């Protein structure tokens, strides 16, 4: 059964098994490899994307559940050449090391700031449970506060 949804503003129709996780549809069918596979069981957050504006772990999100929805991935976050303020904060604070977890990390943080524009450390602890095996966490915390501030100033 064809499933139609929008990805980064573009309508897509795919004829695919409905239980295929959104992650693998993005990566293998649509060539959007910025979203990463880390665990497949919703435990690490590497695959985080937005569905209708909320962060979801796409490895455990069947594609049939996004029918009619708007999906946003890391590739759709910047506005042309202008980076999202979270991406900019990630550069300013030199967050990524290997970088593999950072697409999911950034998407989770964008959702956090959309919901809680000025999060406390406790808010951050509670909301950002993604795994980074390179251990960039303390820079992530600083960069989140910086991005929140940039949002206020904007």
């Amino acid at each position: 059964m064809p499933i139609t949804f929008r990805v980064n503003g573009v309508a897509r129709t795919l004829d695919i098994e409905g239980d295929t996780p959104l992650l693998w549809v993005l990566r293998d069918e649509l060539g959007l490899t910025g979203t990463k596979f880390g665990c497949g069981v919703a435990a690490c957050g590497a695959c985080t994307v937005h569905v209708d504006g909320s962060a979801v772990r796409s490895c455990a999100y069947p594609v049939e559940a996004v029918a009619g929805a708007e999906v946003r991935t890391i590739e759709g976050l910047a506005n042309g050449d202008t980076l999202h303020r979270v991406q900019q904060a990630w550069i300013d604070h030199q967050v990524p090391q290997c970088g593999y977890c950072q697409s999911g990390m950034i998407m989770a943080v964008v959702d956090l700031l959309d919901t809680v524009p000025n999060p406390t450390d406790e808010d951050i602890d509670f909301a950002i449970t993604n795994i980074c095996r390179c251990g960039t966490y303390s820079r992530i915390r600083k960069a989140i506060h910086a991005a929140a501030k940039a949002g206020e100033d904007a």
Partner: protein
Amino acid sequence: MGTALQITKRAFMIGGVAVGGGMVVGYAYLRDKPGTAGFEDWGQKAEALNAWVKITPANEVVIAVPHAEMGQGVYTAIPMLICEELEVDLDSVRVEHPDLDGKYINEYPIKHEVGLESGPILWVIMRIIAKMPMIATGGSSTIRGRYDDARRIGAATREMLIAEAADRWGVAPSECYARKGQVHLRGQDYMFTYGELAEAAALRDMPSDIPLKEKKNFHTVGTPQRRLDIPAKVKGEATFGIDVVLPGMLYAVPRFCPHHGGTVAAYNIASVETMPGFKAVVPITDGVAVVATSTWRAMKIANALDITFDPGDGAGVTHDTVAADLRQALTGDTIFTAEEDGDVAATFAASDDVFEASYDLPYLAHTCMEPMNATVRVQGDQAEVWSGSQSPTLAANGVEQGTGISTSNVTTYNTFLGGGFGRRAEQDFVRAAAEVAKAFEGTPIKMTWPREEDVRRDIFRPAAAATFKATLDEQGGVSALHARVALQSVMAGVGERFGLAMASPETDKTMEDGLKFSPYHFASRLIDKAPYDNPILIGNWRSVGHSHNAFFMESFIDELAHHSGQDPFAFRAKLLQNAPRQKNVLAHVARIANWESPIGAGRGRGIALHTSFESTVGEVAEVSVAADGSFTVDRVYCVIDCGPVVNPDTVKAQMESGIVYGLTAALYGEVTFEDGAAQQSNFTDYEALRLYETPEMIVEIVESDDRIGGVGEPSTPPIAPAVTNAIFNAVGIRVRTLPLMNVNLRIA
């Protein structure tokens, strides 16, 4: 194994005209002969570097970094060193992975370049390189380390450009100077861009022995620089091995025998061949691979496949049997001496206070954020491999093992690595993909390991056990120390997998790394080791032998301090009487951590110091332990002396990274076995530290002019003992085994 041969590697700085004009400069290597030296000898002399500078007629400066970028910042550090002497701004250069098939220089015949890694990994690479035919042309010099070599490449290139400009102007080169990608004539407005000079400059003789800049004149090296790989990584544009897409490719997913030492008994494809996307089930080493039209379909089929396994040699191997066997090995008959100085036995015999303690550490998985994967295409007697490998040389070896195609017919394309930590210094993930590609000639095969396979079929950090004994003199110094470790030999395991006779437990230096050559003064010392083996695959894990030995040594030193009523910091400082560099780091970290100040009830401070990969790191951890036994690591102070610093921000980032990696292991790291099969399989049962548990980290760098040391690993070894020593300080409970999640810290 015979005595260590002195092995030399000659490096040839070579230059030439690039395809399409412009110039290229780099190094080629000639190895004299394969020898039998231990990796410690290599570590000193065989720092491999092959960075290439290409300057196009359009004045574009491209630096090819063939080293694996796995987060440690080499993609930025090598260009920084070159830019320093070449006199171009870091933000004006472009970095690429070189095409190892000679796009840069035609006479460069080495297909598989040396990846940059320290210690044992480098050793393996060198051993494989030594087996491969190599020819090189050019002048000769001896490698002293990449820190100098990269700058030399920059300086030689600059001087060739200056010489060309000077000739065009009819002046002496000393009348000219280079700045920001241009050559200027002193006191005049004349100027050439490098691009204008490059093609002709490329035909000039390459100067040797150009004096390098003094450190005080550096504009780039030693100051924090933004990493060149980060913009792509925040946009999701960096290509990792798992992201490789080739036209017409098929997707493979492995299903390995979970029992190390076991085999596939039987499988039946009838149950799965009608599933969507099914292509084939291909037998591979230690398992099977499902081939399908997408990763997800292959995963689903692999899960549904009716397959049974025979535990083979893994039968009966459990956590408890390993622990018991290690204990037994420690008191067994086969013991190899690693270091002996003075008469330890006599000193103990004469003492009425010999202090003893034993420690145990578990197997650890790597869990690189990016699960193992590789893409291989086989075409006749040729093969190509796309993978994030810690060395393309190792990847080529994997293809050869999986297909029989000689490494000289293998083309490697290296991608970004989603973490390495030693795991990607293996070739099994390439071999598995290659075995499938061979069965699908002409079709690219991308194999992705589910996380469960990545954990169960990891090549683990070995479990280890140790006993320590010491006696003190009247002044509170150590008059005798005896340390004995038992574990599987990492290098013997690696050698077996690469088909190289490399090391036995007797010659494997990683087993005693961090115990031997301790900077502490012991009036007499004996370091020895007990071999032990089982079918569980073991390999390099961030900091290798240091990862367990630092825990053993720094726990025991702490225990000795308390046993003799001395302050753990003051005791260490006393033992470092002959090691000023280490003593300085120790004093520095104690100072910034306010070691002397009171810390409050239920809280504690612990200190640890360790030298590895030619860097010394001191750490002080602060912990809080609640009455119910729950605890937090609140803060970690970290000081490193790594000699000259290239990018200080990267050094700090690597310190933070190594601390989190070591803390994850200290808190949660433990792989247990049943019949040789790992009982953990994903982040659900093999936890990783998360943001909310990450301590505040204060990192400082002590600059020194000593040899340059590594930064990717040395902050990992001290963190576990710093934390357990802090726990002792807080609640008086001595932790002698990890992970801490299994330890009851409730005060009785």
